[in-house]
Every structure is written in C-alpha cells, then in structure tokens.
C-alpha cells in the first residue's frame, strides 16, 4: 500500500508540475467562463422583430408588457385552441398563455413556440409577471399585516419593529414565476421541451466527461509508453507488482484530473465574478442596445437591500449572468456536481485501465491506432447520441445507454439535469463500478505481459493470448 502511494505521489507531482497542466489550468476557466457568457450574449441577439401573442386569461399582465425593438406583444382573446392554430398559421414567434386559476393569482405561464424562445425574452416575461404578482401579493400582505397589527401599530414608532415586519412581508411575497415551454411540432403536436439551460448544462457536462476521459486516459497511455520506451519498467516491476504500478498511475492521473477540475471550477467562478463586478454596467448596456430588452431578471430583490416596499418597483436590473446562476440553482447543482464527479471518476477509471493496457501493448504512440478504435467508438457514439438524448431524455435508448458502462458516463450526464429516478442512477452507477472492476481486471492481464514485450507487433490475437497467460 505504501508503494502504491509512492507511485501515486510521483505521478501526481510530475504531472502537476508540467507546463501543459499549468497552461490547461489557466485556459480551461477562460473557456468555461466564455461558455457561460457566450450563450447569454447570443441569446440576446435577435435580428428581426418578433410577434408575441399573449393569451392572458387573468387580464392582469398584458398591459404590463412593453413593446420593444425586437418584440411586439399582441393580445389574443380567442380560446387557447384557436390561438394555437393561429400561431402556426401566421407563423408568429410564440404564444404566451397565462391561464386563469380560481383561487390565486397564477404564478405560471406557458409558452408555445416552434422555436426556442430566447432566455432574455423569458427573463423579461417572468420578470414582469413576478413584479406584478409581487405587487398584488404585497398589497394583500400589507393589508393583512396592518389589520393584524393595528392595536400595536404606531406610525413613526419603533423602526426595528417595522423593519422586521417588512422583512416578513418580503419573505411572504417572494414569488417565482414558472414558465413552461411547449414546442409546437410540425404536425401541430405539442412536445414538452426544457429550457436551453438544462440542455446546455447536460451537454456541457457530458462533453466535459468525454474530454476528460480522453485527455487523462491518453495521459495514462502515454505514461505507460514512456515507461516502456525509456526501459525503466523492468526496474520498477522488480520492486512493485505491475498491477500496483498500473493502478498507481491511473489513480495519480485521476487526482490530477480532479485537481484540474476543481481549479477550473474555482477559477471560473473567480473570472465570472470578476467580470461581473468589473463591468456590470457595460454588460447590461451592450445587451440592452442589442436586444432592446433590458436585462430584467427573474432574480428576486437583494436580500441585504433595505426591505422597503419601494425596492420592488425599483427594478434591480441584475445582469443576465445572474439569470443563468438563478436557473442553475433550479437544476440542483449539488446533485449535478456529485454526479459529474462520480461519472467522471469511474468513467475515467473504466477507460483508464483500457488506455493503460493499450500503452502496454505497443512500443510507441503511432502503433496505438488499431487498439484505440474500440475505445473511441463507444465514446464518440455516446457523444453523438447525446444530442438525441437531450431531445428525449426518457426514451428507451437513453435508458439503456445510461446503463451500459461504456456509454453511461456521457449519457447519464445529459439526462441528470432533466431529473432521473434515483434507482436508475443507482443501477447505472453500480453497473459502472462493476464495469470498471471488469475492465481493470482484463487490462491488468494485458498490461502485465505487455509491458515486458518489446519489438513484437501485437494484435488482438496476441492480446487474447496474454489475457490467458497465467501469472
């Protein structure tokens, strides 16, 4: 155990001290930060004027929507069915349906569109609606509150009591507007679709797992080849078991990967926060100019701000990044990060062992091509299928691919932001762990023989023979 620790330590330290690691650690967050910022930027770009049909059954909200450079809001008075037909006939941008409910003021709206409505527009709609709702609720709350407290209430009295009261009021009226988007298909069928953000998160997660597996798997492979070509391997295996060396290398590189990932997360947040605090106005300004809709946000009034009722009418005008973060929090970030770490780690471990076996089977990197195929095919396949899975995260294809250990790390990452039953995650995770043990067992056998073989062109038949050799 002590020896495996030494190997892990060496792998880790030499890799972390490398220039390429430092460069990647710096470049990664810049890329990721732009991944956050770019969609916002792109989503706010909209060239032609769009017509938004509004079917407001409550009659409360329509008047509050203001036409802007890009969006024109048109009232619709017909039934929902008719409105939908008109929408597809006229080819308008989208239909916003705010259903009336009997008891409360509605806090949800439905968008029908054959396109994906921009984040900005959705932010604007929910911003207007929540502001309106908050007004109504506030009015009701204040009425209740004052009625309840009339005996003890004195104007100009103890201010802390008023502050306290205002805070309670604010808490009670805090409203989040839920907007569901339905995509109207070609045949007029409604297909439930999710926000771009869920997709982006899922897809980014799966791409990152794909990248990490390749990146760090290839590092393991190159490490093994290095040990073979520098002929140090025989010196080392006379001190430690080949399995210890292989696992030490794989774990060491995994720790490098985790370090890099955590540094990326930390730096990304630092960069985003820095950008946010450095240019809050500029950000807002450019977007306002281009989109014509000010970046009004679903975010609620700042909690630390004085909780005077006025603060609600004064739009806080948070920028769109906040909107993104807000939306992120609706995805259940902890689960996401845990899942990411798990699928990254075990996906990497599963493939890492195979990469090590390939490294052991060849004499130099150019010979790896023929053996790389079985590794690259399932990975690339899962990345390609991921795009289908995003559209339909609960299809049987998605289910089965998230069970097969060779595709599950990538596919499951796509599905998790959409919500996956716990038993499915548990089963998929269990199969992945078993798959990891299986490939490691197999790879160790190839590795053990391969590292001491020189000058022999190996092929699959050869590998099969190595697997069957006795220790």
């Amino acid at each position, binding site marked *: 155990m002590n020896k495996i620790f030494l190997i892990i330590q060496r792998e880790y330290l030499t890799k972390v001290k490398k220039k390429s690691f430092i460069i990647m650690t710096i470049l990664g967050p810049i890329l990721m930060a732009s991944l956050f910022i770019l969609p916002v930027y792109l989503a706010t770009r909209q060239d032609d004027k769009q017509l938004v049909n509004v079917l407001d059954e409550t009659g409360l909200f329509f008047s509050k929507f203001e036409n802007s450079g890009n969006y024109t809001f048109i009232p619709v008075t017909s039934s929902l069915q008719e409105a939908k037909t008109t929408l597809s006939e006229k080819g308008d941008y989208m239909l916003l349906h705010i259903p009336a409910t009997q008891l409360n003021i509605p806090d949800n709206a439905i968008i029908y569109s054959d396109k994906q409505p921009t984040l900005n527009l959705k932010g604007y709609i929910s911003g207007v609606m929540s502001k309106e709702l908050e007004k109504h609720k506030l009015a009701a709350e204040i009425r209740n509150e004052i009625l309840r407290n009339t005996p003890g209430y004195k104007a100009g009295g103890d201010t802390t009591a008023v502050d306290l009261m205002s805070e309670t009021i604010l808490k009670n009226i805090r409203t989040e507007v839920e907007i569901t988007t339905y995509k109207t298909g070609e045949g007029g069928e409604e297909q439930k679709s999710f926000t771009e953000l869920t997709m982006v998160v899922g897809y980014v997660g799966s791409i990152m797992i794909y990248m990490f597996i390749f990146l760090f798997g290839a590092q393991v492979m190159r490490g093994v080849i*290095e040990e073979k070509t520098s002929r*140090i391997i025989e010196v*080392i295996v006379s*001190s430690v078991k080949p399995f210890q060396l292989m696992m030490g290398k794989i774990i060491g590189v995994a720790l490098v990967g985790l370090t890099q990932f955590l540094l990326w997360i930390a730096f990304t947040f630092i960069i985003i926060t820095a950008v946010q605090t450095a240019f809050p106005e500029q950000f807002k300004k450019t977007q306002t100019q281009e989109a014509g809709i000010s970046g009004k946000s679903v975010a609620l009034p700042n909690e630390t701000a004085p909780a005077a009722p006025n603060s609600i009418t004064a739009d806080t005008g948070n920028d769109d990044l906040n909107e993104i973060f807000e939306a992120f929090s609706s995805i259940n970030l902890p689960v996401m990060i845990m899942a990411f770490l798990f699928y990254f780690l075990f996906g990497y471990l599963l493939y890492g062992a195979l990469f090590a076996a390939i490294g052991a089977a060849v004499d130099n990197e150019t010979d790896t091509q023929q053996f790389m195929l079985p590794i690259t095919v399932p990975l690339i396949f899962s990345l390609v299928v991921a795009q289908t899975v995003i559209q339909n995260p609960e299809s049987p294809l998605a289910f089965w691919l998230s069970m097969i250990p060779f595709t599950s790390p990538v596919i499951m990452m796509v599905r998790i932001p959409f919500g996956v039953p716990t038993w499915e995650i548990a089963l998929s995770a269990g199969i992945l762990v078993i798959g990891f043990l299986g490939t490691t067992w197999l790879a160790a056998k190839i590795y053990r023989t391969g590292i*001491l073989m020189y000058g022999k062109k190996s092929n699959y038949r050869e590998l099969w*023979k190595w697997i069957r050799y*006795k*220790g």
Partner: protein
Amino acid sequence: MILQANSVTKNFGDFTALNKVSIHVPENSIFGLLGPNGAGKTTLIRIINQITGPDEGEVIFDGKRLNPNHISMIGYLPEERGLYKKMKVGEQALYLAQLKGLSHHDARQRLKKWFEKFEIQEWWDKKVEELSKGMQQKIQFVVTVVHEPKLLIFDEPFSGFDPINVNLLRDEILELRKNGSTIIFSTHNMASVEELCDNIALINKSVKILDGPVKEIKRKYFTNSYHVQYQDFNSTPYQIHEPGFEILESSIEDGVCSVTFRLPASKGPNDLLAAMIPHVSVIAFNELIPSMNDIFISTVNAVNANHILES
C-alpha cells in the same frame, strides 16, 4: 545456499521458456547465468524477481519460499534498463530506492554516500536526459545496490560502459561480494565470467545443460592437450611418433613448427617433452586450457546437434 530454484517450468502459451530448470546459488559468491539469446535466462531472472511466477517448481530464497518480503532483499539491474528521462537524478534515485522499501531519510543518506563515492554529487539536480549514457548507467547501478540487497542480479551489466567504467563496475561487484552479497550475473561476455564467476549454469533452449563451479567445469573439460613450438634439428618436421599421441593441428612458419598434441589419459606433459627433446629444440610449451567460451560453444553445439539428430 541463498537461492535455489527447483525444477522451475514456465510456459507462455505453447512456448516453453523454462523446462524444469534447477539452479543452486551459494551465499557470498558470484554466479554466472549463461546461455544463448532466447534460452530463458531473462525469464528465470524475472521469476526470481517475482515479476512473473513459475508454472511449476519453486524458488527458495534464504531458506524460505520466495515471497513479496524478499523484494527488498534483491537488487536487479535488467538488461533493458533506463530511467525517467524528464525526472531529476536525485528525485528519481530517491523514488526508486523508496520503492525498494527504504525510508525517505535512509534512502537520501545512502544515496548521498554513493554519489560521493562515484563523485557524481553535482548530478543530483540534473535531469536524466542531460546525462550521457555512461553516466546514466552509473546512476542505474547506484539505485540497484543502494538498498544493500543480499542478492544482486546483473543482466549484462557491462554493456554500455566504457573500459574505465567497466573496471570500476567490476571492482564494485567484487567489493559487494567481499561485503557479503551474492551476485547473479547473466552475460554473454565469457571473459568476465572466467574472471568473476565462482559458479555457473548454462541454459540452452529453456533447459539447463551444464552447471557447477567454474574450476570443476574446466577440469571436466580438460582435454590433456598441449601446444608446442619448436625448431627441428634435421628439418624434417612432424616426426614425433609415440603411441596414442594425436596431432590436432600443425603449421610451420620461418622454420618454427607449431603443433598441438592431445595425449592419452595415461600420459602427461613430461612424457611429451621427453619424447620431443631428443629430436627438436623446444621454444615454447603450454597446456591448452579450455576457455569458458569454448566450453559454452561446444556444449551448446553438441546439445543442438543432438536435437537435430533426434528430430
């Protein structure tokens, strides 16, 4: 007996790398493991190093069946050797020494001592790739012996060294033996075998065909042959006729005859001289001792010839 391999067999698929090979390595001696390329020497060495295990048979180290605790008691310098090119010399030596079970502190102290002995302290912070091949070999030697193993295995230790370093290395090996280590020595260099080894085993085509102390083997291959140079009185060469004296080779150059005789077992060098002196003037006389090289070649060839005959 520090090491004993009993009837060790190892197969790789259909190929038999070792077939019931037994060797006995006495403590505090230098043991030569000889054999042509592909004979199975490296496989046997790998089994002793526990890199692979035998299919049949067993290896006894210091009275106990070979087990992972023995790894730190064995030092191995493989024929295919090398170091991490990008790593610093000192860092790397420390790493390898610790893999052999030394503590960080001990490893550093002992390495410092060795580096001083070889006068290579200034290499400590250099990267391996900055050193010449011979320098790298020195480092490699140091990391092989730094944990003071009871048994050292050198596979072709002299390849890659210049003559000065070969001498240095030979002296180190002799000193290691003096200090109580046992050395197994695998080589094709027969001169060094004769010079250094106390015992040998010769492996050919996965079978051991010869083993024992070098002196005994030489005695066994003693052919009772002599090489004589002489001048003839009556300039008629090759006229020595004694029953049983066989002339193996003869030549004449500038009036000096060179003849190689093989004598029957009952006769000795004195008989040969007694027979010659009345007729010729002897210039030089020496016994033909078979070199390890000759023994190696003749034994291997004889076995291979038998194989061909059998098949």
